[in-house]
Structures are given as C-alpha cells and as structure tokens.
C-alpha cells in the first residue's frame, strides 16, 4: 500500500445533489406566490369597498381576533420545534428529531382545529359577500397548505425512523422545515392582513 503523507487532507467528498431541497424551494416559492396573488386580490377589493364608503366584512359576522391570534402563536411555536428537529437530526439525535417533528405536527393540527372553531363561530356565509368568499378561499387554501406540510413532516419522520436521515444526510428535514416556515409565514401575513386589519 502506498504511504500517505502526514497532513495530506483526505479527498473532498463529492457534493450532494440537493435535489429535494431545490425542488422544495421551488414548490415553496410557488405556494408563496399563490398566496401573494390571493392576498393582493383581497386587499385590492377591500380597498375599493372601503373607498366606496361601504362595509367590507358584513356587520352580521362575528370575526374575533382571539382565535386567529392563538393560531398565530401556535404556528410561531412550531417554528421552534421544527428547528429543534433539524438541529437534532444534524447531530444524529434521532429520538429528539422525531419527538420535535411530532410536536410540530401537533401544533399544525391544533391550528386546523382552531380554524375550524373559528369557521363555526364567526357566522360568515361564504356566498354572502366578496369579503366572505375571499376569506374562505385564503384560509381554506392555507388549511390545504398545512395539510401538505403535515404529510411532508410525517413522511420525513417515518424516513428518519427507517434510518434514512442522519448527520450525513439532513436534506429531507431541512426541506420539510423550509416548507413549514413558509406555512407559518403565510399564516402570520393572513393574520395581519385579514384579522388585524379586518
């Protein structure tokens, strides 16, 4: 065997093809653009309605700020647990990674429950006004986005259980976290544009 000179660095590992990461970034950007378009329609229609001197959200509706605020804080907490999962998998701590992913999933599901409660509570009929239609379109689309995020997270958790992710390969968790942060970001924008501004 040939001698290896002391201090010679080992050959650099081949760069990983970050296919899943790039694909997820593409999908996340598309999702953000979708919501940007919906919110642009919402704010434009709201501006026109208010400049005409009319109501935007029908006065008969009871759109409270408390449930979406609870949901917004829940989403923000899920950012911490999501980052915890990425941190753990990068350190080969699979137990904590799965626990953190499960908590993130739980937070996501609780936002779904909170939104469902709000739907029944606010008494807004979808085809009653333009505002109602748009609120249901935007929040419903966000529920779908959460659903996709939950499936993504569970898939990564199962793959981690099967041993596919470790400190050498964290792409799946990082990709899921990028998507999840977008889910949270979109909710914070919805909370501000729809429920705070009303």
């Amino acid at each position, binding site marked *: 065997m040939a001698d290896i000179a002391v201090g010679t660095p080992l050959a650099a590992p081949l760069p990983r093809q970050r296919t899943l990461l790039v694909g997820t970034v593409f999908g996340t950007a598309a999702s953000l653009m979708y919501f940007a378009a919906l919110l642009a329609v919402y704010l434009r229609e709201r501006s026109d309605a208010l400049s005409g001197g009319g109501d935007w959200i029908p006065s008969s509706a009871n759109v409270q700020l408390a449930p979406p605020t609870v949901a917004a804080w829940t989403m923000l907490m899920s950012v911490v647990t999501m980052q915890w999962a990425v941190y753990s998998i990068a350190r080969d701590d699979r137990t904590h990674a799965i626990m953190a992913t499960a908590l993130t999933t739980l937070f996501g599901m609780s936002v779904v429950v909170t939104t469902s409660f709000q739907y029944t509570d606010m008494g807004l009929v979808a085809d009653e006004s333009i505002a109602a*239609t748009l609120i249901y379109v935007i929040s419903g689309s966000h529920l779908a986005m959460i659903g996709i995020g939950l499936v993504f997270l569970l898939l990564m958790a199962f793959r981690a259980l099967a041993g596919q992710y470790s400190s050498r390969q964290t792409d799946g968790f990082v990709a899921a976290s990028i998507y999840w942060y977008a889910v949270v970001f979109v909710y914070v924008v919805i909370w501000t544009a729809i429920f705070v501004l009303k």
Partner: protein
Amino acid sequence: MTLTETRPETEAVAAGDDVRPATQSSAPQWTPPTGLAGILSTGDHQVIGRLYIVFSLLLSGLALTLGMLIGIEQADIDGGFGVFGQANELFQVFGLYRTTLILCGLVPLFLGLATAIAPRQLSASSVAFPRAAAAAFWTWLVGAIAHIAATFSFGGLGSLQAGAARGQSVELTVLSLGMIGVGLLVGAGVIFTTLVTQRPAGMDLLQMPSFSWSMLVATGVWLFSLPVLLANLVVSWVDMRGADSLRFGGGDAPFEMVAWAFDAPQVYAWTIPLLGITAEVFTAAHRSSPKLFEPMAFIVGAFGLLSFGAWAQSFFDSADPLAQDAHVVTNEVVFTAFALAIALVVLAYGGWLAFNAYSAGERPQITPQFALVTLSGALLTAAVVAGVLRVAEPALGVLREADSDIWRGFFDAMDDLEGSSLVTGLMNFAVLGALLAAVAGLFHWAPALLGRPLNAPLGFLAVLPLAGGAILVGATDALGGFFDQPARPYAAGNPPYGPGHFDEIDALGFVEALNVIGLIGYIAVLGGLALVALNVARSLGGAPMDEAEQGEGA
C-alpha cells in the same frame, strides 16, 4: 445497536458479501412493461419528452383550427357566416383558442423539448424527479382533454348571457384549466431542479448551453406566474359555487380574470425558450460556439424579468371613475416602461446574434431550423414593436400635453389601439414565433429526440407555410387594430355579434379583407404543422442513427 449505526446489510455489501437469500436468485426477474402499459408507467425522460411533443403539437393544431373558425366568422364582421350559433359560442372558442394555443400547445412543447434534451445537455442520466415529470405530463394531458371537452359541452370560461352556458361545464372548464396549470407548474419545477442540481461538477449556471439557460429563466418566470393564474381560477371557482356569483365567477369574469396570461407582458414569458433555441441553432449554423455568452445570458434574464406580467391584471382596474385614471393598469408608467424596455432587450439580443454571425467569419449553413429561428426572431421583433405601439398613447401623453396641435394626427391614430385587435396581433406574433422556434428545436435535436434526422427538403417545404402563415395571422390582426377592430370579437347579444359593437370600425370592407388574409394564414400554419408531422413520421420509418451521433445532436 443504536439507530445511527449503518444497517447490517450495507456493511455486508461493503465487505463484498452476498447477503441475498438463496431463494432470491431463482426468483423471476422483473421486466419493465412494454407497449401501452410501458408508456403509461414510464419515468424515462426521453419518452415523457416525446409524449409532451406529440400531444402539444396535436393541441397546437386544434388551437389553430379554432383560430381558423374565428377567422371565418370575422371575414364577414357585421353579418357573420354563422359558424357560431350565438355570441356566447364565439366567446367560448375565443377563450379556448388562447388557453389551448399557449397552455396546451406552446408551453408543454417547450417543456417536452427540455424534458428530453436538457438532461443530455447536462450529461445527466435523467431529470431530477422522473416520476414527478410523468405525473406532471399526465396531469397536464388529462386537464387539457377535460378543458376542451368541458368548453365544447356548453362550458367555457364564463358566459356572455344568462343561460347561454351550463354551470357545471363552466366549473369543469375552470377546474381543468387549474389542472393544466398544476401540471405545467410541476413540469417546470422538474426542469428547474434538473438544471440546478444535475449539472456535472465544474459546470456553473453560466456554462450551460443556451437552451438550458433559457429554460432555467423560463421556468423561473413560470414559477411566479402560474401560481397567480391558479389563484385567479380558485377565486373564480369558489365564487361560482355560491348561490349567486358575486364578482369573480359570473358573466365573462372567469376569462377576464385570466386574460392577463394572454396579453403583454406575460405573453412574452411563454416565449422565453425561443431565445435559447435561436442562440443554439444560430451558432450551430455558423459552425461556431456562442461568443459573449454572459451578455446573452443577461439579456435572456432581463427578457424574463420584464416579461413577468401577473401584476398587469386589468380585471381589477377600479370601477370608480374618479380613481380609474390612476388605476387602469395599461395606462400605468410601469406597464409602459416594461413594453419599451423589452423592445430594447430584444434589440440587444439581435445585436448579440449579429455579433456572433460577424465573428464566425463564414456564411451560415442554411438549414430548415436556421430559417425557422431567423423568422421566429422576426416575429418576436414584430410582437415587441406591436407592444410599443400599444403603449404609444400613454407614453406620448407628455408630448400631447406639451403641444397637441403638432402631434394631433399622430395621437389620433394611436389613441384607440388600446383594446383593439393589435393586442391579438401581438399575442399571435409572439406565440406563433415561439412555435416556429420550437419546431426549429425539433429539427435541430431530431437525432437526440427521435434517433434519426428529419428530412431537410421537406423541412424547407414546411418553413414557408409556417412562417408565412404566422406573419399573415399576426400582421392582419395588428393592422386591423389601426382601423379600430376590437380585440374582443364578440359582445352580448344574439345572433353572433351585439348590435352596434362594430360601428366604430373604419373601412369595414378593408378590415374584412384583412381578416380573410389572416384566415389564409391560419390555414397555412396548419398546413406547415402537417408537413412537420409528415416529416417526423417519414423519419421514424428510416434507419436509426448510432448512439454517438444521437449524443452529438444534443
């Protein structure tokens, strides 16, 4: 053992041990399905690319047939030939022509070329997500078929009169267009990811071949455009599901909400790969490699940036007359600036081509693809000139204020171009020009795509009707705009056209003569596409080239 350890079988394989159970060697080997099952389940990027190309060319033919039907009707503007029973049917076909030509024809044709060719250009074995590429293709195809079927089943993107369309068919038309959008978006994502991640070590983004670079820019712009189209469709669909459509789902609102996708500047975004194909074919014809690639890459990027048009949605122009002057999107400074800037970018691209031709130092080899890309470049130039004329009135508004007497005659001609058939001419110039470039790509990469070259004399025979027809279609629409022919050839009413809708057209007989010439243009383009199909069929009957020659083709 902790979960972080390497799995035992991996260690065994690494040690060179055969860990397969003894019975496995006698198990029957899995063989991939062949025939129809093989096509339906394939993840082979070459096959998916070919499927895209075949179906998108077929659907382009359908779109051009629809354009021809509209042309027949417009040959007698005030009376109509009765091709369409009522105004609403003309409206349905008018919308379907646009959705089919662009979203079922042009964009998937480019995606098909990229799916088949881009991995070969990068020396990659396949696209990044082969199964997603297959899912994208089938989603798009099913969506396209459903969209066409729904439109012809008394559907369409809305309706002009109450009761003229069937509600469920309209809903299906909107949903299927969304399905087309999702399919194209996933397909674009696959190409984008392939171009970013599948490059060989040492090849940076600016070292990619011109076509791959243009597809990277195109899919990037489509990434930001298609979700907006989907958002428009979702809002329309939800609104029409209610007891009464409030704003987005009633009347012709579903079409008007997505009309921005078929108008400047977004219409340029669908044509971005034209620039990459032209660069490759042009330099290949001069037997040279592209010189000053970085400036060209910058030009293509700038073209992509300026062609993003999801913000230019005139549907949301304010209904308040006091606010209208400030809010009419086509009168805004940004809209005007984009139209003027994109003309400069196309001019710069022409300069880059001229520089490459000059520095090659020899005459180009005249091939069908060279003729096609030259003419497609001319069509794109005509499109941006039409775009500049369209914004001429607001752009020269300052001069009007300064001295109306001197410029009055000029302004009067420019005043009414907004909303005229010049807009249709612009779209036809750009889209048919890009279709020509895609056909040029088919000729250029035929060895890699089909394993055989296409017949050159038959190719030259197709160039004339394709390019000549495209010029006639675009030019007659654009010229009609100067005589106040409206962009929308319909109005609510029955039979065909609403009374008084065409009273403002100057020189009606001349405009009708122009429309007859445009009709001949549609027939010529259709004939050209048929010749291309014949060429492909003839080529497939010949002997295949060897692998090395096929690789050189990419």
